[in-house]
């Protein structure tokens, strides 16, 4: 990541207190560099999901603002991937990916090319007519990613997308995500509990404190080419160690 990368969006002093008095976020200011993967890493309950929801517009900050460099996002500019694949169980793969287009009143014909491209991207050719319960967990997650990408969003928000998958599938999807990101050249904000996943995927890691969530460190990662071998290098181990240390320090009273 070059120091000159301009931010796609910036959060300015975002705090969020829920009506029941729970304060989830405390003064979060963060730059999300365009065309890169930024990971939010922090203990459970520190407000990572809340921050993603505020950025996506699903929730509102109590105080603070989100600034978008290229103007406020339109419908389809933001792709959201949840921890569960979150598919319509009664609809097949094609129809599930068609949903965002359908909501925008795009005809099936007009949407077809974008949908087929997205299906190609996640390697699900031939599964267009399958229903979610006929797919494995990893495949369902690919459908979810394809749906998020099909509208050609400028930012992809991913809330622990691979947390429920086994490790082998997770590794595979990590590599797929890196490949897809290069192919569509979008910005990714990724949430995870896993230090290893964060270090492997990210260009930048924002470490958060326990609730109320604050940003306690921002670290840029530059480990070069991500391949399976990378996980075995000492640089990788060192980065993981540093990040873990930051997390533990943040946890200390």
């Amino acid at each position, binding site marked *: 990541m070059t120091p000159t990368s301009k931010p796609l969006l910036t959060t300015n002093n975002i705090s969020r207190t829920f009506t029941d008095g729970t304060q989830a976020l405390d003064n979060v200011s963060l730059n999300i560099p365009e065309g890169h993967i930024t990971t939010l890493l922090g203990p459970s309950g520190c407000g990572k999901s809340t921050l993603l929801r505020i950025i996506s517009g699903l929730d509102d900050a109590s105080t603070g603002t989100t600034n978008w460099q290229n103007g406020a996002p339109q419908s389809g500019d933001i792709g959201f991937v949840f921890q569960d694949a979150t598919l319509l169980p009664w609809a097949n793969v094609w129809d599930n990916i068609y949903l965002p287009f359908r*909501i925008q009143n795009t005809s099936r014909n007009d949407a077809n090319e974008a949908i087929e491209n997205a299906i190609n991207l996640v390697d699900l050719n031939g599964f267009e007519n399958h229903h979610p319960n006929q797919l494995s967990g990893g495949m369902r997650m690919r459908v979810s990613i394809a749906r998020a990408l099909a509208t050609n969003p400028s930012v992809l928000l991913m809330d622990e997308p691979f947390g429920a998958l086994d490790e082998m599938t997770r590794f595979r999807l990590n590599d797929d995500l890196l490949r897809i990101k290069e192919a569509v050249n979008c910005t990714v904000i990724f949430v995870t509990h896993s230090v290893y996943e964060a270090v492997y995927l990210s260009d930048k890691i924002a470490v958060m404190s326990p609730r109320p969530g604050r940003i306690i460190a921002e670290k840029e990662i530059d480990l070069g080419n991500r391949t399976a071998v990378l996980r075995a290098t000492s640089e990788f181990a060192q980065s993981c160690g540093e990040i873990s240390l930051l997390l533990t320090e943040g946890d200390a009273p």
Partner: protein
Amino acid sequence: MRMRLKDPLPPTLIGIAVLIGWEVAVRLFEVPHYVLPGPFLIAQALWQNASLLFGSLWITLEITLVALIAAALGGAALAFVMSRARWLERSLLPYAIVAQVTPIVAIAPLIIIWVDSAFAALVLCAWIVAFFPVLANTMTGLKSADPNLRDLFRLYGASRWQTQSWLETPTALPYFFAGLRISGGLALIGAVVAEFVAGTGGTATGLAFRILEAGYRLQIPKLFAALFLLSLTGILIYTILSILSSWALRRWIGAAD
């Protein structure tokens, strides 16, 4: 969640065993047939009164089916209306509950007095008993959409109408059918109870009236024959609704269990 008689063999064997045991016991202990007739005698009564009983069965069935269709449509429509707004639910639901908890035997005489057509009166009674499971289940279903899917619809700027027709309604469909299967049995019960209350007063001579009549005349085998037809009808309604439901929900395969 689904109860289907997948393998009909075990229940059939049990049925045959019970019938044989019954016949043997009745003969062995010489039970008088005005107390408990054996299956053989009942079958004979069914055969001898076939045209009468099946005619009555048809009348009861007509009442039940019309009430059930009205319950399906009315219950679902009411659930939709109530799901549109909290205040609608708060103002209408209490009356639906009142109709549900008031024993039908208590209101049936009034309905029969108020409604001119005997058929319509009986249908109305059966409907009152049957509509609530459809209403309650559909209402639950309309609220059961996955919160993440709701967020997804919101993220893409879906209108209220889009969310209702593409998310809430399909989510509610399995709940609706679960309610409908319960309503099927209740519609029959409602029809029978209403017929009992109507008695000879009405022109309708459904199965319930045949049971009363046979009871007064101490034609116990005929009474049992009518009873047998009634349970057979109940089982038939449940089975048909189950088949209808799995056909309608074939796209939900796996999602419903």
